[in-house]
């Protein structure tokens, strides 16, 4: 428990450290008001359109696939830690096959995704863009 107290202390100190630094900076820094400074950076032009728009859902799918594998990793870890003891208890082979089934099921999923293109980032086929098509 005490160990986690240390971690909590580290986390809180991380926040405090930033606040302290920013406070020092705000004391040391000069402030010169100018409206243009507070405009958003868009390469020197006035920003057009909004950044807060409906975004491409590919990011969502990546997160979804990630989550599945994340859960898998989380479930492998306790098994891996316990493997030594399970071997010592004579359950090693059983544990191996049990885990194999679990992982192979997921590898099947990965393979399915792979074949169906679920692992592809939204990527245009640069060899078949519109302007190239009519020549082919």
């Amino acid at each position, binding site marked *: 428990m*005490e*160990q*986690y*107290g*240390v*971690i909590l202390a*580290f*986390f*809180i*100190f*991380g926040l405090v*450290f*930033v*606040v302290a*630094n*920013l406070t*020092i*900076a705000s004391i*040391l*820094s*000069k*402030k010169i008001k100018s409206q243009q*400074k*507070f405009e*958003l*950076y*868009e390469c020197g032009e006035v*920003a057009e359109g*909004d*950044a*807060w728009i409906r*975004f491409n859902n590919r*990011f969502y799918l*990546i*997160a979804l*696939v*990630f989550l599945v*594998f*994340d859960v898998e*990793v989380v479930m*492998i*870890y306790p098994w*891996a*830690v316990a*493997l*030594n*003891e399970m*071997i010592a208890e004579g359950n*090693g*082979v059983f*544990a*191996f096959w049990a885990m*194999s089934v679990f*992982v192979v099921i997921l590898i099947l999923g*990965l393979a399915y995704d*792979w074949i169906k293109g679920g*692992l*592809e*980032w939204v*990527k245009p086929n640069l060899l078949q863009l519109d302007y190239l098509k009519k020549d082919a």
Partner: protein
Amino acid sequence: MDNIFLWIAITLGAMVGLVSVVGIVSIYLERKISAFMQDRLGPMEVGFGSLVNAIAGKEVLREGRIGLAQSLADGLKLLQKEDIIPDGADKFLFKLAPMIVFAGTFSTFAALPLAEYFIPADVNIGLFYILAISSFGVSGILMAGWSSNNKWGLLGSLRSTAQMVSYEIPVGVSLVSIVMLTGTLSMKGIVVAQEGWFWNWHLFGAVGHHGLIGFVLLPMMVINFIAYFIGSLAETNRAPFDIPEAESELVAGYHTEYTGMRFAIFFLAEYGAIFVGNAIAVALFLGGWYSGIPAIDQANIPGIAPLVFILKTFVLIFVVMWIRWTLPRLRVDQLMTLCWKYLIPFTLFTFFSVAIYKVFIV
């Protein structure tokens, strides 16, 4: 009760010192290394003397000859920069984001096994803890990119998030092999398992555990190490995986709108993350605080352990910089392909190999 507070005070102090030194030294090294690789000199002018003069308001003489105080001077400069929050930004989240990113990174320092008796929080799930807490920083980056209401920032943070979560998988799987060998998640336990000569390091297989037959695992462990190393490069957004802040495409990625000290905090957190990423590689694959030669270990020379550990980490950091200044940048789809179609299958393969080795061979 006093004991724990004293411990927290000591370790916090040490780790704050470490993170600052790591930041300053890494930035200096990065400049010098890149300069030497590119046939130029890098920072040459700013020495400690000129820095002192500058602070005292005296005439600044060019006293340094190798620019040792350059990073410090930059830090001082950043402290004096105006803090600008754009009008269009979501101010609360904009301010919160650097804190989250830094606190997330700094928390990982709590489980760094610098020496056998100097692990701030020697929790029994240490490895798992570091993996878990580093995913916390992801949300900070997303927050930074979204709140600044900047298109480059948003694109950068989305790329960054997708990249960091994806590469958590190969990193996680590649480390399972080591957990299987050592049977513990404690950082201390994993490092202690590699005591003695350097062939006991996990990079060279499982010699430390099972004698010569452990060499069978050498290729597996090398693959694991490479997969982990690539993964940690990607998780820390380093070249060739620096697409989230690719300056030629996204200007500066998620911290485009950040100025002054807030920007410096991101920078510090980034270098801290690089240090932690490589420190884990050292602890898990390269024998941690053991020098690899029993004669110069902590048993004989007290106090050498943290030095050995930090030195090894900096060797890896050098490799990271070397890679950055050598390789071009990947595109976002190629990055995902590398992760899902190469690293994950390879690490799953090594996972099975080590499992078979554990269950059927030894």
